[in-house]
């Protein structure tokens, strides 16, 4: 546990030595502020074009940021020998990877927190503030996106040998899960018999943290009915408190699976060395 904490604090320090962290922070803060100021005042609460666009902005930027910063941090250790040095101490891979995860999560949360804080405060000064409940939901949503995608990032970092490879993988996964998702699913699922489409779709959504989070947020914002009659029971169920609990459990499981998988791969690599 002490090791984990040390690694996490080291990661925090390394994270903010990295100029990428600041450029991402500036990018995120600037975009969310610009978006807030551009929109009309009409749509600052509930599920509207303004909040909908904000959701999409978060989904475009945060997963990519998370994936790049996360996987780079791990591959850098391989490339620059940081891991070689650390592994000469009695440090368990488990503590190391989870420490990395915690530290990176903190770095990304701080980036998002700074961005939201800045855009929220300046927006409010100009009379363009999200309602506090909506603001809180966006924070929670961003945090969840960070936690889940960081799981993928850590795994990518464990798989890839260098930053170039990690960049390729990261962008590829981002494109698949964010940009290409509806296109690919509509194309592939169209071949399935009609009755299979919905179950397959629901199953696949649980494999895509961006969609899972997005739908959860929309339902919690009261927009569940727009998903149509097919998902009536799902929406009804998510709206209940048990829905949130199960959702939290799914997220935890997701993180656990990915980080443990990364640990296992890393450990295997360590044995080979």
């Amino acid at each position, binding site marked *: 546990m002490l090791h984990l904490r040390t690694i996490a604090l080291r990661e925090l320090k390394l994270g903010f030595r990295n100029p990428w962290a600041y450029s991402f922070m500036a990018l995120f803060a600037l975009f969310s502020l610009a978006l807030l100021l551009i929109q009309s005042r009409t749509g600052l*609460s509930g599920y509207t074009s303004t909040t909908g666009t904000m959701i999409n902005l978060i989904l475009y930027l945060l997963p990519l940021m998370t994936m790049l910063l996360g996987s780079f941090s791990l591959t850098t250790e391989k490339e620059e020998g940081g891991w070689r040095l650390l592994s000469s101490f009695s440090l368990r891979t488990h503590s190391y990877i989870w420490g990395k995860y915690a530290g990176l999560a903190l770095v990304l949360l701080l980036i998002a927190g700074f961005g939201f*804080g800045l855009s929220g405060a300046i927006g409010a000064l100009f009379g363009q503030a999200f309602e506090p409940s909506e603001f809180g939901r966006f924070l929670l949503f961003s945090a969840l996106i960070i936690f889940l995608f960081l799981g993928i990032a850590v795994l990518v970092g464990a798989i890839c040998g260098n930053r170039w490879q990690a960049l390729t993988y990261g962008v590829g996964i981002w494109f698949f899960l964010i940009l*290409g998702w509806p*296109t690919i699913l509509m194309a592939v*699922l169209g071949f399935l018999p009609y009755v299979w489409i919905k179950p397959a779709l629901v199953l696949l959504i649980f494999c895509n943290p961006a969609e899972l989070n997005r739908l959860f947020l929309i339902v919690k914002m009261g927009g569940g*009915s*727009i998903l149509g*009659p097919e*998902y009536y029971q799902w929406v009804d169920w998510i709206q209940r408190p048990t829905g949130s609990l199960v959702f939290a459990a799914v997220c935890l499981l997701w993180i656990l699976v990915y980080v443990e998988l990364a640990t296992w791969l890393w450990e295997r690599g360590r044995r080979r060395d």
Partner: protein
Amino acid sequence: MGKVRRGGVVASTMVLLLLAASNWPAGGFAEVRADGSAAATTADSDYGKDRVQDLQPLIDRTPSGGTLTLERGRVYAGPATIDKPITLASAGQSTLTNPGDEPALVLKADGIVIRDLIIRDSGTDPKKPSVLVQSDRNRIEGIDLVTQGGGIYLREANDNELRNNRIQGAGAGKRSEAFSKRGNGIDLFGSSRNVIEGNTIIHVHDGIYVESSNETRVSGNTAIDSRYGFHFMFSGKPELVDNVGEGNVTGGMVMGVEGAVVEGNRFDKQTENVNSQGILLYDVHNSRIDRNRVEGNRVGVYIENSTGNSLADNEVSRNFIGMQMIGASGNAFKDSVFAANVIQAQATESDDNTLSGNYWDDFGGLDENGDGFSELRYEIDPFFLQATEDIDAFQIFFQSPGLPFLAEVFRTDTSKWLKDLKPRIEPPSWYEEPGGSEGRGTTLRLGLALLAASAMTIYRWGYRKS
């Protein structure tokens, strides 16, 4: 055009009638107290006050043209039938109870007046009303009615006036109570020229249901927490003016109608159901839909199989889908505001609709000649509607971040798209943009705290050397 003008004449006649009606002295009826009803009205002693008295004998004793004034605080029992023109009024807080499924009151003679009565009906059959009107020129005012069954039903009853009544489903509070277990609030069938004004209807099946009834004027009513707030079926020239619908499945539904006037209504927050809409027009022709506000609904205005309608000066804001059109043609939309809808509009199989002079808040137009209208068109991509048409399950991709990418890939022929030829640069003068949101101060404090906390943490644990 001719039809619209005739509708206007009818409307103004109605207004005149209403004005005349409102000038009647309010106390006039109470003073014309019939001697025959003395037994019921002058019994000031406490004798028998707690006893429930049957209403029918009292009605039978009231002469034609007389007034039956019920005692303050006293409980009467239905069912009762009124077959002569009398006034049934209450001196205040008189309650009519009704044990069975028969209507508490049946109006069979013309020219009956019922005022200020509390009705608590134990009927549970949603098809059976509490007050049944089968005659003409009656007035029902200030009734406070609670029932599990139907409220006030008009059957082949013409020229009646229903004003300022309050009708509430007995299951109010049970939000998920099945609609099939509730009756309609006010229900008209085969009844013409009735005026329904200023009523409040809560938690029923349909708030006001009008079928095969011509020239019904429904104005200034409020319908909440019901299936359809206002529902017109196969009725000629209905007028739906200045009503409010909130939290229903659908605010105002008009179906199979020619020459309707839907004006000045407000339909907010119809989002709970997967079929929720603010205004739903189905098979509606040559009607006028003006100055309505639909806000925060699943679909603001939904138009299907409808032609020749004119929609102007409406405010469509904060809906998931602002306007949706399916198989609608030859309709005109102008001078309306579309603001902050997640999707502003969608249309498929809808040709020849003309959009002009609307304000779209997501559109940055280009006004070269300074006439206040953009020379660039506002075009509406029907992609998502088409993509989800065959496979409902794909609705889950609504506003998915990858969707614009997909839409761009499939963007081909835009000639069939719905487009505003003359979009407005600035919103019309009547439109008031809401001033900042309520919790602005809280969000400001929250933002500043977050900013300070993250900046400090970054400095202390990240940036600083030690």
